[in-house]
């Protein structure tokens, strides 16, 4: 049911068609100081995806190679942003995309703190700012199409399909060809994501965070927070018990005090 995309970094030539397609489909602005491609490009409020160029020394001969990395939201299986959002502005839809509902957002930016990949970006320049990130074209996916970026890739670097199909294709590809690193980025990171990457150069050299936990990020808080009702009830019961006990003691103390006074008066 859940859809995914495989990004084969060896096949990317850095044409930027995907980034332009994203701008076209989502009606995003082009900003002079915020390029969508090249060494200086990065995600921001109007760049929901970018193609970053990296020069790497590869292999034992330290041959310099150019690689192009498409960045965007990884649409985690158990997203930290959705867990951190108390307004339910971020939700994981059943088709796969982690979708943002701007009408529910209050602009607290907890999602930005929570995301292990630093994906959601804020509209700093606006008076009523929203959080912006790749939506994985949910209406296109609902109609059975691939996201806009995947549709236009001319070299086949982006493959769209069911999550397990895409994962199988990734496994097949890296096992069949020895040039690939034997790791699928996104298979286990943050508990699994919908955007998977395979590459022939180490992921840390490409700018990926390789120290991300394999436990889904929401579990860290869920482990503690699921105790809340139990703690609440227990503590409530305890305090109620103490209150009742102390009230009874006060009543008894008062009774004894007034009895003593009456006795004194009688004398």
């Amino acid at each position, binding site marked *: 049911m859940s859809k995914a995309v495989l990004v084969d970094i060896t096949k990317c030539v850095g044409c930027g068609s995907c980034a332009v397609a994203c701008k076209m489909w989502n009606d995003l602005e082009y900003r002079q100081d915020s390029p969508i491609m090249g060494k200086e490009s990065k995600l921001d409020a109007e760049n929901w995806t970018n193609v970053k160029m990296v020069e790497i020394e590869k292999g034992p001969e330290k041959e310099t190679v150019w690689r192009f990395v498409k960045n965007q939201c990884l649409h985690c299986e158990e997203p930290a942003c959705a867990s951190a959002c108390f307004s*339910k502005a971020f939700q994981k839809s059943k088709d796969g995309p982690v979708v943002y*509902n701007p009408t529910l957002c209050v602009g607290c930016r907890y999602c930005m703190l929570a995301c292990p990949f630093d994906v959601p970006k804020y509209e700093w320049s606006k008076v009523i700012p929203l959080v912006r990130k790749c939506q994985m074209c949910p209406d296109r996916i609902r109609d059975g199409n691939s996201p806009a970026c995947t549709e236009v890739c001319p*070299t086949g670097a982006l493959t769209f399909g069911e999550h397990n199909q895409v994962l199988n294709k990734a496994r097949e590809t890296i096992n069949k060809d020895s040039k690939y690193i034997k790791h699928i980025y996104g298979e286990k990171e943050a508990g699994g994501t919908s955007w998977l990457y395979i590459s022939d150069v180490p992921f840390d050299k490409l700018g990926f965070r390789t120290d991300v936990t394999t436990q889904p990020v929401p579990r860290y808080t869920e482990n503690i927070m699921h105790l809340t009702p139990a703690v609440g009830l227990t503590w409530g019961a305890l305090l109620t018990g103490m209150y009742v006990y102390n009230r009874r003691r006060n009543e008894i103390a008062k009774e004894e005090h007034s009895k003593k006074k009456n006795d004194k008066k009688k004398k």
Partner: protein
Amino acid sequence: MDEQFKLEKKVTRRSFLKMMGGLGLAGITASIGGNMANASEQTGGRGWLPEQYQSSGTWPAQVRGRVPIAPGNPSIARDDKKCILCGQCLEVCQKTQTVFGYYDLPIIDDIVCINCGQCALWCPTAAITERDDTDKVMQALQDPDKYVVVQTAPATRVALGEEFGLAPGTFVMGQQVAGLKRLGFDAVFDTNFTADLTILEEATELIKRIKGDINKPLPQFTSCSPGWVKFCEYFYPDLFPHMSTCKSPQQMLGALVKTYFAKKKGIAPEKIYSVAIMPCTAKKFEIQRPEMNSSGHYWDKPSLRDMDAVLTTRELARMLKKKNIDLTTLPEEKYDPLLGEGTGGALIFGATGGVMEAAVRGAYFFITEQQPPANLLQLNPVRGLEGVKEAAVDVPGVGTLKVAVCHGMKNGRKVLDAVRKGNAPYHFIEFMSCPGGCIGGGGQPRSAVPPSDEVRMARINSIYQADARMKKREAHENAEVLALYNDFLQHPMSHLAEELLHTDYTNRGKRFIPLQA
């Protein structure tokens, strides 16, 4: 008085708490109601062009990927704002030029690109266009210390007028010179001068190959198209020995301006800023080739470059318009002497088959020392837009000179594969990277998008008609070229000619992974 300021209703503690409680309940209800909202109303887009196309998928708007352009590409640049993902750049690069898609992935450290600029001609929104060098040239023109020299390619004089509303093919040679003079160039030379020079050098080389005087194989390939040269360097480096060692006319003139011209006029070569007006975007790449500093070696200053800037026909038109110079109202003016004379044979370099026809005229004269017959002054088999053309020319006393001409690298590949197999029984082959030859170059006015054969033929016909009108139609008739040999170079392929006018090539075959067969 105090009574007037008393509130009508007293707010008691009870009523205040009631109000707060009510608000709180309302807030809780709103929160719960909001949390029930589902994810369907998401942010993001509704379509390719949201105002017009509300349907899903790629219908009716066809969106396709585009060509990769390396960030440091000296010839072309792209404005993403204007890109509509029509995919025409990809179409021409893959189908007409056979460059994109003809290498395996991953890339190494180079985006395979021959800088031909056809993508710029096919781009409907001009998102892809030439890299702008007009600011650089304007600065040099305004610098009182610089002696700014310019040369014009033959193909520009049948197309520049189109940027000013004239019909495709209108011959504006004189007006172009006048315009350049008004822009402030100190000397205006004609690339036709060195086109004639190229004929003399290259025909000499061809005859030496045929006779066996130099140990190089036949067929000989022309080498004046930098897009074609780069294509050969990528995909057919094993065929380098076939490539003529002659530089392109542009580079020959660049080298001569900073040596021969500088000496004759007594100008310090570092003060010369050499510009070329070209129909070609690959020329911007060519001037950056490391080996293009022969004039620097001549003066023992290797940092001195033969050429400093290239402007396309479109850029020149922009510069003229910025200065409010209307080409159509200008008088015809002449090129400056010393490097300004060109014959009809040089003029036809701009058309596909032109280099070959001019070379045949020259070779005939060299071998027989007689004027070529009339059919060599209109060598129809090599004229026109057919992809691969052949001709056989009878040279009395020697035999038949077999030649071939091709334009567009898809056609080039056919011929090259035949040469590799040994199936190419020619002596001489002309390769042009752009369909139609230079008149269809990546820097030419976008009179038809994508370029049409009609526009190409109009420009080609104009060139051949101008050639027919000229008194001198063969390279050896060029008096200034003969003076150059007399005063400076001595004879074709002399030691000095080899240093200044000849070059070698770079194997780029290892910069990418070839396609697995």
